């Protein structure tokens, strides 16, 4: 592999921003920045010295009857979108999650949260339901309202995508069980009052 310093191949001190000498990198030992004295440890990888990737603009159509890109009719199609089947030129194709996708499918996937690699935020409905079931117990009378809400949150969001990290549905189950117990408690209390 040939490495070239096409880009700014220096690494700076994260304390003062001073560029650092490469002889101290990847040594496995800390060293002091000559400017601010901060103790640094730096590990660099070959990507630091790799130049920017060349973007292929797509080849122009040379003969009539050749398949053209859906988004650039004057460019030659190079591949198909794996999601919608549209012809794509080399400029439009994007590889994501092992599939070749067109810009509109990526946009749709991000909007619908279908492509996990594009998810940047998730709400943890299971934690919300569990908190709604447990925290109001500090003021027990509130649970008459919050217990049904906790059950609603748990059932309504049961199938909605939660965290992208490994996580079971145990919080949903606990929220439902605790909320049901609270409702049962209220039921018993009302029956006793009625009697």
């Amino acid at each position: 592999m040939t490495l070239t310093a096409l880009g700014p191949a220096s690494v700076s001190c994260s304390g003062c921003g001073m560029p650092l000498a490469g002889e101290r990198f990847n040594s496995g030992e800390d060293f002091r920045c000559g400017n601010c004295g901060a103790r640094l440890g730096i590990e660099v990888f070959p990507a630091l010295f790799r130049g920017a990737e060349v973007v292929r603009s797509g080849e122009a159509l040379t003969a009539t009857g050749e398949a053209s890109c859906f988004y650039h009719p004057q460019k030659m199609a190079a591949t198909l979108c794996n999601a919608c089947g549209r012809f794509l030129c080399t400029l439009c194709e994007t590889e994501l999650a092992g599939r070749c996708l067109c810009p509109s499918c990526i946009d749709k996937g991000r909007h619908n949260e279908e492509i996990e690699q594009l998810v940047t935020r998730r709400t943890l409905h299971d934690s919300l339901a569990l908190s709604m079931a447990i925290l109001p117990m500090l003021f027990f009378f509130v649970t008459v309202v919050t217990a049904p809400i906790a059950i609603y949150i748990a059932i309504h969001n049961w199938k909605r995508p939660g965290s992208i990290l490994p996580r079971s549905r145990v919080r949903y189950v606990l929220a439902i069980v605790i909320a049901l117990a609270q409702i049962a408690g209220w039921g018993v209390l009302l029956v006793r009052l009625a009697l």
Partner: protein
Amino acid sequence: MKYKRLASSRCGLGKWHTLWRGEDHLLAVESNGYSEEYARYYLKDIQAIVTRRSSWGKVLNAVSGSLVGISLFAGIGGYENGPSPVSVTAGIFGVFFLLLLLWNLFRGPTCYCQVRTPVGIEKLHALDRIRSVRKVLDSLRPIIGQLQGGITREEIIELTGKYIDTPPAVSPAALGLKGAASAPPVAENTISPYRGGLHRAAFLLLIADAGLSLLQMLHNSKALVILSTFVEITFLCLAIIVLAKQKVRPVASPAKWLTWGGLATMMAGSVIGYFFMIFLNIGKIKPGITQYQLFDFYAAIEPAEHPSFATFLLAFAVVTAVIGIAGLIALGSEKRSIERRRP
């Protein structure tokens, strides 16, 4: 997608950061318990991982160690004719701070960690201990090596050799340093040093407060309590400004963590002082009591009659004085080192 947890760290109240390894990327997760935010760093794009040691661990050690000491003094002082509420409370606090100290010592030195990719430099909040950074690097090195290929130290030296880490002969803006472009022009192409005036004022206030605490120990009075409260409030206000200042201007590392230590000591002292005011006037405090009356009660506590209170004042005075004097020494040595570097 399968993720393997690499590191985690709690940062602030109700917020924590975790770092996970996916098939081809690192996933940094910021969570508040009810939602998660994700940032992905693809292993093929990672250019460098930079760690810088921080003083947080030392500050936490100093603060928790001081609090263990204060609790010990207060506990011994409060143990007059058998266990008293003061000695029991001090004992509970002491054990808590001791466990905190041991836990912090076990986790090792703290650091800031950054990852550099072609689109920018990001802080990895989950990696805040040197030990966890090394562990993560050991696990990532072979995988990144497979994706990016290898690189020898000679190649690194050859490709980065033109940069040296000595004070700049040209302005930071010319080197393209972050924030330098927006900074006002400085004379003679040098970074203007912060002379530490505000830090010095904060440390002097700490020493003054130590003196007032010693005077209070000899004879408590309303005037002394008012004066020390004024000094403490001034210090707290100044500490906020100083902490904001040291975030953006270069300040000697010991001075930085001593400022944090001073702030923590002052806050802990206020809380413990408040507890003393409650415990030593427990019979007089009734519902509907005003803050002014509480203040009167505090001024009326005579240290000679309450050895635990006298011990607390002495311990507080010693700790604040030590921090104040150490801070002034750190600023002095920083000033001398700047003068030595000046051509």
